């Protein structure tokens, strides 16, 4: 049994409630306990830092201070939202690096009777915990109903793989941890080169055309590579790709209807939870038709033939190619 401090973030209270619920169910199957940081506040998203610096860091500092105060034995702090995760991690990191910033933020925290010692809370994203702390073997053991035949595009977005502070857990541009995780639960992972590109963030509110362009690229890339469903790890990514799909279709004359599910919902389905329990149907683009693709047996893997058992596989010689062409 591993225990973590848990920072849900505002989106998981309502818009992304299914992320929270599915995560709690999955956690039980994986022997994880999440203790919510009592009375946490909003992390400020990308907005507070735009207006005022010290208050923005003090806002995140209060969460870190509360997490440290309520933390009995050096547990890591887990955030399932990428923006929350980055804000917490970045604040901790910059406070440790800049004595001046640390002094000012702690002076502000003192006005609320709090103090935070940089480095005292280890911030992790949920994906990091499931793929590294729990590990693929344990995940595989929890699978009851593998998602055979379901083609998934794992979507990482930006903020959990970039920026790189202390050696993130995955590649900054072509991450693979969620790919492996989805294969572990039996699903087929499609090639998805756009997997770590931006969903547009708050641009849907400020300059819709910019956001629609980015969302269109992502949807197109996943659909072009044959995905049935996109797996998301952040409420902002899920909302943008799901709720703005209609707007993208209108703007670009496309006809996308690819469902966006949280990776925890997919884990939960594989762990044997029902669709209703996993909150399937809360998404605006209905996932049920895609989930009907799940097979009882694994699809036959496409086998690549190795030309000879004795020689190394080499490209065919020019003569061979010529004779092939002649025969045809």
């Amino acid at each position, binding site marked *: 049994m591993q225990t973590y401090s848990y920072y849900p973030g505002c989106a998981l209270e309502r818009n992304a409630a299914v992320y929270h619920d599915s995560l709690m169910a999955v956690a039980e199957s994986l022997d994880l306990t999440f203790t919510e940081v009592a009375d946490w506040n909003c992390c400020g998203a990308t907005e507070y830092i735009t207006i*005022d610096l010290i208050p923005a860091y*003090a806002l995140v500092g209060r969460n870190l201070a509360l997490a440290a105060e309520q933390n009995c034995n050096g547990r890591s702090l887990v955030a399932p939202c990428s923006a929350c995760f980055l804000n917490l991690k970045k604040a901790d990191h910059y406070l440790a690096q800049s004595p001046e910033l640390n002094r000012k933020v702690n002076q502000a925290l003192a*006005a609320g009777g709090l103090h935070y010692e940089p480095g005292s809370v280890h911030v992790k994203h949920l994906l990091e915990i499931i793929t590294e702390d729990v590990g693929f073997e344990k995940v595989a053991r929890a699978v009851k109903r593998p998602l055979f035949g379901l083609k998934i595009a794992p979507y990482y977005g930006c903020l959990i793989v970039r920026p790189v502070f202390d050696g993130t857990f995955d590649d900054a541009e072509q991450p693979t941890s969620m790919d492996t995780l989805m294969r572990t639960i039996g699903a087929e992972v499609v090639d998805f080169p756009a997997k770590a*590109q931006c969903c547009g963030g708050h641009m849907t509110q400020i300059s819709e055309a910019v956001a629609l362009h980015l969302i269109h690229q992502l949807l197109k890339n996943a659909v072009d590579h044959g995905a049935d469903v996109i797996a998301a790890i952040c409420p902002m990514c899920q909302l943008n790709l799901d709720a703005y799909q*209609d707007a993208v279709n209108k703007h670009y004359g496309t006809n996308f209807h690819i469902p966006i599910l949280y990776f925890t919902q997919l884990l939960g389905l594989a762990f044997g939870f029902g669709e209703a329990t996993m909150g399937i149907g809360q998404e605006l683009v209905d996932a049920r038709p895609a989930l009907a693709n799940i097979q009882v047996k694994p699809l036959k893997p496409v086998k690549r033939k190795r030309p000879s058992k004795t020689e190394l596989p080499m490209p065919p010689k020019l003569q061979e190619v010529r004779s092939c062409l002649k025969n045809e």
Partner: protein
Amino acid sequence: MDTSVKYVRGPTTHDRTFLEEVIAQTPVDDPRLAYCVQCGTCGGSCPSGADMDYSPRELFAMIDANMREEVLSSNTPWYCVSCYYCMVRCPQDVHITDVMYTLKRMAVREGFSHESNAKDAPDFSETFIDFVENYGRSFELGLATLYHLRHHPLNAVRMATGMGFDLFRKGRMNLLPTRIENIDQLKAILAEAKAIGGNGDANL
């Protein structure tokens, strides 16, 4: 590292060059921005480069040339979506995304932001902050509606009838924000933080 003289260039209208000011207000205070080699990797990596009036690389050259007004009225920082691609690719390790935030703060503070063509962005941030300061949590429905009512009345109608309604119907939007218990503590912290400031020549 002794950085006292390394990045003093260009004519100064203030005590410090514009470049020094930007560096001082960007955590963590180090002169990496001054070591930009103008390679253009940042602009080439930028997903919203096409909509920016100057690429990040150009903007950094302009900062170096002390073109304060042009930089602060540019829409470039406002179109930055914080994807951090530039930051992991920059050969000089410039904290580009953080520099963009610094420029946004400077522009808001000095009243520049409304001249760029991303003029609604600061208001979006301010509406967001209002909720956080009063409730301790953000509030999607209130935020979107208030903001759109102010800037895009037609969008507000769309929020209420189309997608917004769908989200609401599915139980994905709150009608009322939640308030944290210890909101007084948060308010005290934020009031003190604002009093401290740190926007001036801060050396963060």
